[in-house]
């Protein structure tokens, strides 16, 4: 039935520094290995190419810090990847030079996601980001100069030491630059990490304040004309659809292929995750064999549950069809009564009301049978 995945994710794990709060698969430094790693990626691409559709809709280079990769290696990778309608690269502001911006643009990159996190120097310090606020602005201008008309900012709230006023200022600074897209996440501090250890009490306080922060973010960005199209994602309302097409594919339950260490793929009812070990990954592909993978078969039931869980994060109604089988009818009615869920008259679609979206996790847990 499937004619191949139309979405490709490529993981570039290298970073200048591992930030205390980060839980992605990353590798600090190792410049000498960048080229070798790109070879491994391309070799994995060859191995799995049959899983891809002839024409791709999106490619997403995530990390790590993809733009920290040796420019020559990065360039070679971009040249070798299949073309797509939307090609996104994640970038840290301090890595974005004029030259890099031009290089990305000239190799078919259509969209850059900038890891801004905050514009407040003391908060950037807490996050262990090396960047300064002015660098953020300069990187943005370089991207615009190179012709990028689809730039996204990542912002984080709930940072130890952050106040409501500081968050307001961050939002104002971001809005002043006017990116096409914003992703706003709450800081998720994993228990037992160095970061959590260092900021325990303050994280506790922030966790109590998180609901106010979230409300503030949604209110400010919507007020500034952004569409709250996914729980944590906003795009400028425009005739063009400025939503992240790649991430939409995840939220709509489409198939995607992931390449690289720790990358996850979901194709034709199977999900697998590549080994997170850099050496093991490269060695396997140098032997032209697939890297070690943890495979998770997805039953129809699980797929449907995931589609409800993901689909209800969006502002557009979820078309139910076969998904109705995993819903608890009584819960749907109860939550409608509470004004958290909205359904059309013959219950073909389901959507969360704005208040329901703030409570999306609990509401979804209620809705599922």
């Amino acid at each position: 039935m499937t004619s191949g995945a139309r979405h490709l994710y490529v993981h570039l794990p290298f970073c200048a520094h591992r930030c205390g709060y980060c839980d992605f698969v990353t590798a600090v430094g190792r410049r000498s290995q960048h080229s070798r790693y790109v070879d491994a990626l391309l070799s994995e691409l060859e191995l799995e190419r049959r899983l891809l559709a002839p024409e791709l809709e999106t490619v997403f280079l995530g990390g790590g810090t993809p733009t920290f990769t040796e420019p020559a290696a990065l360039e070679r990778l971009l040249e070798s990847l299949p073309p797509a309608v939307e090609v996104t690269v994640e970038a840290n502001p301090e890595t974005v030079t004029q030259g890099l911006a031009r290089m990305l643009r000239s190799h078919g990159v259509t969209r850059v996601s900038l890891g801004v996190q905050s514009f407040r120097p003391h908060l950037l310090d807490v996050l262990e980001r090396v960047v300064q606020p002015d660098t953020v602005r300069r990187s943005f201008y370089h991207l615009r100069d190179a012709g990028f008309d689809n730039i996204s900012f990542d912002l984080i709230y709930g940072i130890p030491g952050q106040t409501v006023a500081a968050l307001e200022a961050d939002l104002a600074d971001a809005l002043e630059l006017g990116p096409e897209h914003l992703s706003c996440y709450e800081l998720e501090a994993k228990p037992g990490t160095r970061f959590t250890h260092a900021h325990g009490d303050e994280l506790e306080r922030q966790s109590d304040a998180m609901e106010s922060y979230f409300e503030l973010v949604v209110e400010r960005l919507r007020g500034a004309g952004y569409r709250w199209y996914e729980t944590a994602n906003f795009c400028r309302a425009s005739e063009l659809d400025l939503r992240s097409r790649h991430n939409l594919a995840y939220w709509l339950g489409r198939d995607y292929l992931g390449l690289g260490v720790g990358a996850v793929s979901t194709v034709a009812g199977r999900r697998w995750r590549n080994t997170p070990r850099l050496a093991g990954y490269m060695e396997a592909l140098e032997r032209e064999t697939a890297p070690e993978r943890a495979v998770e078969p997805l039953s129809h039931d699980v797929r449907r549950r995931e589609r409800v869980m993901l689909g209800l994060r969006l502002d557009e109604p979820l078309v139910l069809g076969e998904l109705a089988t995993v819903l608890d009818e009584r819960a749907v009615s109860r939550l409608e009564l509470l004004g958290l869920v909205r359904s059309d008259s013959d219950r073909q679609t389901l959507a969360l009301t704005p208040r329901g979206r703030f409570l999306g996790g609990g509401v979804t847990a209620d809705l599922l049978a």
Partner: protein
Amino acid sequence: MTQDRIRNFSIIAHIDHGKSTLADRILELTHAVSSRDMREQVLDSMDLERERGITIKAQAVRVEWKGHQLNLIDTPGHVDFTYEVSRSLQACEGALLVVDAAQGTQAQTLANAYLAIENNLEIVPVVNKIDLPQADPDAAAAEIADLIGDDPSHVLRISAKTGEGVEDVLDAIVERVPAPSGDPDAPARALIFDSSYDQYRGVVAFVRVVDGRFSTREPLRAMALGTRFEAEELGFFAPTRRESGVLEAGEVGYVITGLKDVSRLRVGDTLTSERRPATDPLPGYKDVKPMVFAGLFPTDSDDYPELRDALEKLKLNDGALFYEPETSQALGFGFRCGFLGLLHMEIVRERLEREFDLDLLVTAPNVAYRVRPPNGDWIEVHSPSDMPNEVEEVEEPYIKASIIVPKEHVGTVMELNNDRRGRFDHMEYLSEQRVHLTYELPLAEIVLDYYDQLKSRSKGYASFDYDIIGFRPGKLVRVDVLVGGEPVDALSLIIHRDSAYDRGRALVERLREEIPRQHFDVAIQAAIGARVIARETVKARRKDVLAKCYGGDITRKRKLLERQKAGKKRMKQVGMVEVPQEAFLAVLNLDSQKKS
């Protein structure tokens, strides 16, 4: 054996004063059990009893000592089983009263000693644990002698642990305890002092033959209940089962009845022969009624049939256990169970959880009330939710509490009793250090954490025992709890009018902490009838969603959601509100919370 060679006795002691160890040593010395085969504490056969250091079910063991037949009748060791203890004592002519040489007389020592005196038993006083470094045998001997009006030189001093002095104990039994004096030729009469249930043989009665003789295959009758059956097998334990075919006047043994229902043969009843029946039963039979009630609900409502089967099975072994189906809006289907007291309740609950592997939710216990509605007859109420809205009169059970406490803690213990609506009755010095207090208290005041409070206010030194003394009128009201406007039947309580406001206030505050924030504001109210006496609000959550969700972590996010879902499933639905099961236990420890 002729009656003059028979001695029937019990060992009575406070918990942990060494009753079971002494029993073991006696079995060992009389070769009833070789020390190699001996499991420690043979008489306490159930694991649960072993762990708690108490004995629930009495058994009788026959041993030989210097040409005499000694029957050791074990007694239950706790306040809830006073009636059973008294029946066991009635089966004896003598009792060993054992007191710990370090701790001296305790509340249960007193209670048991008085029971023994009431039953006209010859008391053989024993001070145990003389090997302990902190032992003060002289002081303990003086106390015990004073208690029973004996001479301190008659008090035996032993160590059941090392065996020192245990032979003297056996000699003293032969010398001091009178032989049975029933009439071997009269119509047969035997006192049932305990019973148990065997899944193949039915009810097994433990009896003391008073007059006449019983033999196998004889048609028998229990005189109070009128139950008829045939004695399938007669015998005694030594300590394993020995079939003997006959039991004669003065002897102690068992009767296998083949009856399938333990409630048809009650402790205290008299067995007689149908062929030549006795005219009068032995004195003292009482129909024991449960006084403490609680709702038992399966945590998972699918387990209801298992709970029902388990209660049926327990009931076979425990004639005092009462249960009837109960439906709670909040907790679903379960049972309202009646117990002799708190310990009995605790034992039943643990057996259900341990032996039947059930997860239970036990509501706050309450006592039995006698209620008279306007223009109506008296009814008995076992559950707050059954309390009629309008009542003319209410009566509640009262107890006489007997407390022994070091003198420096007398003040705080009196204060506790006053707080619990206690009426001071009597106070006396047992020694220069220790005081015996008696109070009359509503039973309802001790079913919730009284014992813990007593212990904590006396640094653990107070000991406590009680007797139910009957029903008395009380100014009682029913306090209902409403969550999100819905009354929660399982949280209703009946309390004295004067403390209704404080308890209601404390309860809603406690519930506010226990009920998690929901997707809407939740009002928690305490009310007497239509009048709200306390109110709290659990504010609605404003955010309950994970910020980030991308291709790499869909599985993890799904699992988080599944966990959240499972958490919700464990909650009980009250109207629209999800209430965690722990919240239903909030009433259980209100006081301890308030005071900590």
